[in-house]
């Protein structure tokens, strides 16, 4: 009995061991399915997320009057995430934290504990959506880090990220404002009359403590900080044109007066130094030449009438400025294929003819670089504008993607330093770039006031960088009626009128350039 029990025990042990070692350590797991790439919608709202590991933007969706964001997209850049959904509930694992959410319910379970949303959790196309208003409470449960969510501005700060600005005004003549940051920054800088605007899209710049800082200076008057739709914005207001330059480490932005800028404001007293609100309201349609300039002038009602210039400031008493309108592409060069049959070159020509008319009735002399389907090289186009000593150059393009219009200024290349009166061909635009950006901002503002979606940008697009006068390119995209809008005279007419109004509003600046 004793002898026989040993082999039995041995046999059972051996059998068990064989079974255990043969059993798969785990079912061959399917390759992790890539998360369904959230196709970006055309919605404008977005939330900016700043964390020590990633900085990113996510689209914000509106559901039943509330703002939502995709949970997976939110957590994915921050750690390892996997989800599983059956349509009604969603199980999520973030690093080692398990959570379960139910569609339409406000209660969820995270790491074994209940969590209450401010609005129902939603599941759309296997994608979990959480209300924005719950993020402050929700994210610390997953991340274990402090979260600062500015809901109205849609800016989410995770952990200790945050860049503080500080100001130091050198009240010399001319004055200079040093703007220092606690970390390198990379804002988009633009100018408009009376204002230098810095938009921080990727930098977690925080409020300097006060929304508005007033300087005891008659030229550089004040700065304002605002946050909206995931962006932070610092505006510096002045009575003279401003320019900005970066320090080597990009922690300091030096804001100074544009050398050689003539200022009526310098001789005005402090009462005459208009408030920023005046300059802002003048921008869309008026003579947005800065607070020191006269009020906006209306465009002349009749073709050829120069009443506008007669009524404007003495600085604008020039001969009729020449606008060069350039319908891009032409001849063998068809441009983008907007549809199977419609080429970009056809749309740009029709659009250019309308713009010519709109500018002419506003007192401009207009040269159309091509009025038929001919080949023109980029160098020929630039040379024509330069030889004609045009006051402004407008290149017209069309595209089938997107909506509304985009207005571009030149993105200058590395090479091309100007030597004396000679400008490098590839950087001939450099001296006029500042004014080009003002023109671009005015066109965008004017388009937007006419309910035309518009954005400004910069592009390495020839011949923008080869012309020495203010130069912009306008890319017309479809409107609400889709691609048919691109050939719609009504649609083109609205865009052309807005562009022409904007050009009139900055006419004084073109005069200075001329």
């Amino acid at each position, binding site marked *: 009995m004793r*002898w*026989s029990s040993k*082999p039995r025990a041995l046999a059972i042990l051996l059998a068990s061991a064989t079974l255990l070692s043969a059993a798969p350590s785990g079912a061959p797991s399917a390759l992790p399915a890539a998360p369904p790439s959230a196709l970006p919608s055309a919605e404008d709202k977005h939330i900016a997320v700043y964390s020590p590991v990633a900085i990113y933007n996510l689209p914000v969706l509106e559901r039943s009057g509330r703002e939502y964001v995709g949970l997976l997209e939110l957590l994915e850049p921050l750690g390892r995430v996997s989800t599983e959904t059956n349509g009604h509930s969603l199980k999520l694992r973030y690093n080692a934290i398990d959570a379960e959410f139910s569609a339409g319910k406000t209660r969820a379970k995270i790491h074994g504990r209940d969590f209450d949303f401010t609005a129902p959790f939603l599941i759309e196309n296997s994608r979990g959506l959480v209300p924005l208003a719950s993020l402050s409470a929700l994210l610390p449960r997953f991340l274990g880090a402090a979260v600062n969510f500015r809901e109205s501005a849609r800016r989410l700060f995770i952990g200790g990220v945050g860049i503080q600005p500080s100001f130091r005004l050198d009240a010399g003549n001319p004055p200079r404002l040093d703007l220092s940051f606690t970390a390198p920054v990379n*804002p*988009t800088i633009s100018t408009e009359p009376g204002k230098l605007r810095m938009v921080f899209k990727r930098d977690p710049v925080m409020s300097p403590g006060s929304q508005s800082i007033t300087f005891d200076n008659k030229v550089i008057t004040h700065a304002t900080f605002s946050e909206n739709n995931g962006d932070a914005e610092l505006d510096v207001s002045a009575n003279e044109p401003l320019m900005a330059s970066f320090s080597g480490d990009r922690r300091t932005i030096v804001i100074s007066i544009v050398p050689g800028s003539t200022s009526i404001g310098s001789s005005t007293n402090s009462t005459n130094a208009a408030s920023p609100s005046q300059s802002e309201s003048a921008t869309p349609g008026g003579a947005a030449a800065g607070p020191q300039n006269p009020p906006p002038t209306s465009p002349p009602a009749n073709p050829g009438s120069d009443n506008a210039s007669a009524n404007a400031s003495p600085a604008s008493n020039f001969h009729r400025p020449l606008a060069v309108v350039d319908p891009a592409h032409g001849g063998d060069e068809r441009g983008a294929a907007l549809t199977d049959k419609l080429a*970009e070159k056809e749309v740009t020509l029709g659009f250019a003819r309308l713009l010519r008319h709109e500018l002419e009735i506003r007192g401009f002399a207009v040269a159309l670089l091509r009025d038929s389907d001919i080949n023109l090289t980029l160098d020929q186009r630039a040379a024509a504008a330069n030889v004609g000593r045009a006051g402004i150059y407008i290149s017209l393009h069309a595209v089938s993607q997107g909506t509304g219009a*985009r207005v571009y200024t030149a993105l200058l290349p590395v090479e091309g330093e100007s030597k004396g009166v000679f400008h490098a061909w590839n950087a001939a635009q450099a001296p006029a770039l500042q004014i080009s950006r003002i023109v671009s901002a005015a066109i965008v503002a004017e388009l937007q006031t006419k309910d035309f979606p518009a954005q400004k940008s910069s*592009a*390495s*697009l020839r011949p923008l960088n080869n012309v020495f006068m203010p130069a912009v390119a306008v890319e017309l995209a479809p409107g609400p009626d889709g691609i048919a809008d691109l050939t719609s005279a009504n649609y083109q007419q609205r865009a052309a009128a807005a562009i022409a109004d904007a050009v009139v509003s900055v006419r004084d600046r073109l005069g200075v350039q001329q």
Partner: protein
Amino acid sequence: MIPRALLIGVAVLLVVVIAMGIYLRHMRHQASELDYSSDTLPVAPPASGPTETVTLYVADDAAGMLRARAAQIPLPGGRQQRAEELLRTLLRIYQQPGAAHPLAPAADIRGIYMVDPGAAVIDLNAAFADQHRSGILSEQLTVNSLVETLAVNVPGIQRVNILVEGKPRDTLAGHADLTQWFDALTIMQAGGQ
């Protein structure tokens, strides 16, 4: 006489051995099927090199901007190989179905050359440019995405030039000027708008 318990034990073991044989055969068949399906996925990044967290600047046509996206990828040590691997990773994002900035499946990076301290030349294949969508925004986003991703992740790159099939080309697809050297800082300041 052989004890009964031993007989039972041997019999059980025999049954188990036969069952395991069948099961192993089944598992091997499944494994071969998995290998086959993984072959149809996009080319996996090389396993060599330590995994690093990098920031890819991914174009989003609808938003008209670049979005910073953190990714963990194995990167080789050399700057040139590192740059090539970065851009190929970026390219794979654009070649996924439903990408926010689609590029042609045949588009590829032929190579990247560090020609000068601070300067890099990206050599695209013909399909990259020939099949690229035409339009200022789309083309500029592609350029910005390539330049910004390189400049941020490969230390020292300040200027970038783009060739197609080893030769200079006027534009990417009719708009973005490729004859110039792109200044990384200028492009980053422009913010990929």
